């Protein structure tokens, strides 16, 4: 009986996670196109309609997906057939796998058992994320290499160099956070962000590690290959970079992977630095404001508020990715390398040192 219960819970969590991430892809494709249009004083997509409804162009991603699904599945001459086919899978799978350790809600009690609202509550959470997200570059490199074409190869090379540079800063920028919260398990990091700092400010990662947050934000943008770090695609220089030779649904999978990377990046930022599903001053019983004010809320409402908070944070940071894309131009390649090695790396090392020093002074090294 308990085995069946565990199975049902696991399958349900995986289903919810997949449905959440995959359904966000068309929404953010739409938000990207419509947002870009409004930022650039255009109207954006508004033609595709079902039964006379356009919903502000929301059907365009659907039409795109259908179109790509029905196109010829093409493999260019001279391409490495196996690697060429594998590359989109390597791009998509790590992006989806990363989401597995992100808690999207507080633990709930179902039939007398505590169920964590995350696919896998790994005790090595952050390490797992780095291990898996490091793999996502293989998709890009394989695509660039297997296409047997010069621009994809350049895109793949750029991606690998960029990933190596920014993976370092990404990893080091988290160390400070791990030192503060004393855990790499994501559910514990989120739980400890529910307390208050000096009784006023929520103890979110962004308040205890402001520099770490900035470094992490920049590094995540670079890891997700989003503007201003979208050199692997760099339309103005290398046609479309690593996916130049891809068409039909293989291209669509690269496209989905990019947006899932964005969603995962947003979820990571929200989880590590903005309290995950925590709502400021919201305890299990209701709101407890610092002035001693209290507002009781039923447990179910608190639960949905917290899940809503997580979804809202993910939406905000995914929108930030889009917003930044239409604000900042792409870096030149040497600028990317300079920023990665000469700015982010020393700053993240300094951040670790200062965090350690402060922790030593406060806790006396306990």
């Amino acid at each position, binding site marked *: 009986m308990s085995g069946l219960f565990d199975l049902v819970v696991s399958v349900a969590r995986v289903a919810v996670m997949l449905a959440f991430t995959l359904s966000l892809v068309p929404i953010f494709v739409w938000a990207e196109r419509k947002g870009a249009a409004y930022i650039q*004083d255009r109207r954006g997509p508004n033609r595709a309609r079902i039964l006379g409804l356009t919903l502000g162009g929301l059907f365009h991603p659907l039409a795109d997906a259908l179109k790509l699904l029905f196109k010829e599945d093409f493999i260019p001459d001279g391409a490495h057939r196996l690697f060429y086919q594998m590359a989109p899978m390597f791009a998509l799978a790590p992006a989806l796998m990363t989401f597995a350790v992100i808690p999207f809600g507080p633990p709930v009690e179902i039939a007398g058992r505590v169920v964590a609202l995350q696919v896998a509550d790994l005790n090595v959470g952050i390490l797992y994320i780095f291990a898996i997200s490091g793999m996502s570059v293989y998709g890009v490199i394989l695509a660039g290499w297997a296409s047997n074409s010069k621009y994809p190869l350049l895109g793949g090379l750029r991606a690998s160099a960029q990933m190596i540079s920014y993976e370092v800063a990404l990893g080091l920028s988290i160390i400070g956070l791990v030192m503060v919260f004393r855990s790499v398990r994501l559910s514990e990091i989120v739980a400890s962000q529910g307390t208050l700092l000096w009784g006023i400010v929520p103890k979110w990662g962004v308040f205890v590690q402001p520099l770490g947050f900035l470094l992490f934000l920049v590094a995540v943008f670079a890891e997700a290959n989003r503007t201003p770090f979208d050199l692997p695609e760099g339309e103005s220089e290398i046609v479309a970079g690593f996916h130049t030779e891809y068409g039909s649904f293989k291209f669509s999978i690269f496209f989905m992977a990019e947006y899932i990377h964005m969603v995962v990046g947003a979820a990571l930022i929200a989880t590590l630095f903005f309290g995950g599903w925590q709502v400021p001053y919201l305890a299990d019983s209701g709101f407890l404001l610092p002035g001693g004010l209290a507002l009781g809320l039923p447990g179910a409402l608190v639960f949905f508020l917290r899940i809503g908070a997580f979804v809202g944070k993910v939406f905000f940071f995914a929108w930030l990715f889009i917003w930044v894309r239409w604000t900042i131009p792409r870096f030149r390649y040497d600028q990317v390398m300079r920023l990665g090695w000469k700015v982010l790396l020393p700053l993240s090392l300094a951040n670790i040192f200062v965090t350690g020093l402060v922790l030593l002074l406060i806790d006396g090294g306990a």
Partner: protein
Amino acid sequence: MVIGVKKVARPRKMSGGESLYLLEILKGLGVTMGHLLRNIRHQENIATMEYPEVRRVMPPRFRGLHRLMKRPDGTPRCVACFCCSTACPAVCITIVAGESPDPSIEKYPVRFDIDMLRCVFCGHCVEACPCDAIRMDTGWFTPAEHTREKLIYTIDMLLEK
């Protein structure tokens, strides 16, 4: 002789705060968000024209698609003199003349086809016409069709415009 030294304008050196980029990026985000909110609130101010539904109103002297004029009794004003087809640099006008039943008029066009695929919209036909039978004042442009045949306009289509 003194060599003229030209001073090339260089961008001014960035201050410390600017070279950190943080505040500048926030300002940029503010600008783009301002555009976004303004365009969502005042959609009517977006310059984009919803083309097939909304057409631009052309100035009165715009040379658009041709039309043939009619006399008060409804017959075409054209007398099949071939002036327009002679003047046409693209050789896109085909006229077949026939004898008019009206004794006061010598000829009338049995066929008057304009191949819109060849027309260069120069307006020489309009200038050449001695009886103001052909005009280009419809204000329409970019004929788009699925077949080439539909773009050869016959006399009936030209008289209707």
